[in-house]
């Protein structure tokens, strides 16, 4: 099978897995314990590093833009700049990349191991649909948890920016001014913008990582290969879809105060 055929076959199979996962969401209530367990694992594995990353990203944003704004007497605008950057772009992307690396890799490893050691076949022989049993709880858990993590990341990142804005002698913006500017600048549609991206990225991470895991054949070495493949593919698709989703929002004027 040549590369082009393989690309279209893989894309078709991933889309099919997505459709099946959405179909099996009807069994979410009866499988709620599995969904909740997955959500807890995502939170436990992601929140500590997310706090660290978010503080420093927010601080870095403030540090990069603050002194330049101060040159033009616009340092009071720093709160809005940091918040917009986090809420629209960096919060969703960094949270998603972290989830893909920590949680997505674990999903792939677990499902790949089950595939290699015939546990998926065992499910089929018991007439238990592997998508309902394994993929759907991970799918729902990821798309529910990732937006929450993004909001959490935004809040922590904004705080990180406020600390740098106050303490850096070239910026020197008090908390009150910083947060006042955020209130004046940020609209609900900005937050919605970031949350929709989180939803899209959550779908990508869960479906891609589960797909690669389920398709793994061979032995333990192939499990490691599958994990690497799923994480890299997730990263690429997150960045790609980030551009196209942003472009789409700009085209329809969703939350943008200007036309491009």
């Amino acid at each position, binding site marked *: 099978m040549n590369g082009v055929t393989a690309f279209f076959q893989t894309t078709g199979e991933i889309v099919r897995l997505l459709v099946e996962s959405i179909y099996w969401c009807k069994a979410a209530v009866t499988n709620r314990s599995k969904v909740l367990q997955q959500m807890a694992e995502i939170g436990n594995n992601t929140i500590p590093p997310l706090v660290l990353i978010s503080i420093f990203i927010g601080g870095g944003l403030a540090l990069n833009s603050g002194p330049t704004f101060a040159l033009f007497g616009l340092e009071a605008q720093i709160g809005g700049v940091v918040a917009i950057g986090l809420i629209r772009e960096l919060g969703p992307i960094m949270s998603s990349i972290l989830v893909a690396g920590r949680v997505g890799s674990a999903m792939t490893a677990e499902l790949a191991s*089950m595939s290699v*050691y*015939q*546990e998926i*076949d*065992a499910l*089929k*022989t*018991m*007439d*238990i649909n592997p998508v309902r*049993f394994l993929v759907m709880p991970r799918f729902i858990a990821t798309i529910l948890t990732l937006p929450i993590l993004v909001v959490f990341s935004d809040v922590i990142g904004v705080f990180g920016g406020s600390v740098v804005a106050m303490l850096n002698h070239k910026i020197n913006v008090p908390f009150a001014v910083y947060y006042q500017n955020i209130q004046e600048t940020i609209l609900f549609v900005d937050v919605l913008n970031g949350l929709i991206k989180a939803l899209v990225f959550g779908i990508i991470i869960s479906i891609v990582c589960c797909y690669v895991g389920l398709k793994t054949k061979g032995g333990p070495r192939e499990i490691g290969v599958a994990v690497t493949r799923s994480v890299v593919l997730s990263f690429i698709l997150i960045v790609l879809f980030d551009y196209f989703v942003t472009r789409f929002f700009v085209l329809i004027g969703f939350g943008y105060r200007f036309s491009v």
Partner: protein
Amino acid sequence: MNMRTENKDRTNISLESNYLQNSPVGIKIIKLNKFFGNNHVLNDLDLEIFPSETLVIIGKSGTGKSVLLRHIIGLEKPDSGKIYINGKDVNDPNFRMKHRLAMVFQSSALFNSLTVAENVALYLKEHAVFEVDSSIKKVVSDTLSIVGLEGKEDVMSPQLSGGMRKRVAIARALAMNPDLILFDEPTSELDPMIARTISDVILNLRKHVEVTQIIVTHDIDLAFYIADRIAVLDEGQILEVGTPKEISRSNNSLIKDFTATHLEREEGGTQV
């Protein structure tokens, strides 16, 4: 254990009554062919398995035994040929599987995040066969007794030895109250003592449940110990089918080579 257990819960009567009914299946395989790339693994294979019998399929490694088993249980589709279960073509678009087919995999295929009890009860829970948890617990307890693992319900699967994992896999298959059980190399990677334990478990299964059994193995001693009939597979075809006595008297040179070691031991009176 009598799998036809009386249960007083009437709210889920149709699922439960369907589960409690048990009717061993007969299988007919006609001109089955399967290719993996250029490798012709199954080559115009014909085989008939009678209801309630224990058929052992023996052959050297790589002759297509496991592939045949996977076709019977529906994990593989043939390139040509037919498989009939109780006279119904399994590849017919209108075919609906009314029988419970269980498989014990070579690797046992237990779920490592579950306990022994959770593994055994998986089919019952996912299909909501019983409404009452106590009924599920009773089935789990009874099946673990059959395989000699009483009291191991709360042990996590990764903590089990190889022989225990195999027995849990058999218990999990039994808990389905199956009409057909397939065993893929049940004694592989086990020491002789544990292999004998597994053999005895398989041999004694029919005291507890009416079921057709198909065992695939290259262990000739196991085949002669438990089989009603033995089918010899070589290069994707069935060479001969017969009772253990008939196979031991076969004039086919390949079969003679294959059974030679076992027959020498039998003649020497060595305990197997």
